[in-house]
């Protein structure tokens, strides 16, 4: 059974068109939820860690929020350089991360 499900799989946005990415998870006893950005041919780059429902974190045009069942990554007024795959992961036992398949975002100028 999938522990992390991300939607939508792919998203095309006009520059400046704000949107949200969803990450739903089923792991019990969440120890941490992570968002990473991955560019083609590169490794995942850490963005945020969230630990408890109601927590929010921001970095430039990105804002991550967490509820008991899901997390959202809000992209405000995106620019072409925000184009990437955004990966969500949950931590469970022994520092292991279970990743979703990612949200592939393309921002069109």
């Amino acid at each position: 059974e999938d522990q992390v499900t991300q939607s939508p799989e792919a998203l095309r946005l006009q520059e400046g068109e704000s949107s949200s990415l969803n990450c739903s998870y089923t792991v019990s006893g969440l120890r941490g939820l992570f968002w990473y950005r991955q560019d083609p041919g590169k490794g995942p780059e850490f963005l945020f860690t969230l630990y408890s429902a109601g927590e929010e974190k921001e970095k430039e045009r990105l804002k991550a929020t967490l509820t008991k069942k899901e997390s959202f990554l809000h992209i405000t007024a995106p620019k072409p350089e925000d184009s990437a795959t955004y990966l969500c992961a949950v931590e469970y036992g022994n520092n292991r991360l279970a990743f979703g398949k990612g949200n592939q975002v393309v921002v069109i100028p």
Partner: protein
Amino acid sequence: GAGVSQTPSNKVTEKGKYVELRCDPISGHTALYWYRQSLGQGPEFLIYFQGTGAADDSGLPNDRFFAVRPEGSVSTLKIQRTERGDSAVYLCASSFQGRDSPLHFGNGTRLTVT
């Protein structure tokens, strides 16, 4: 400072051959992880080292896969009798120990088994 370094960046090998993939973690990071990422998928956990010992190797798919970290720094992932299904990007990550220390990933080794 320098990030996680993985070599080679690309490796093409024939089915049945043996390969070694190397990871140089960020200096001072005690924890080291190997993940595997197939096309269109998120990274999948393989093994976790704390210091020199493998604290959790439950993600290794079978006994053809083995990893070492003899001095608590550099790690090598070894794959014997490679199969075409082993083709993927192998990612290494490192971190400090502790709740607030996220994983920092290298750019991976793209392994292609022909």
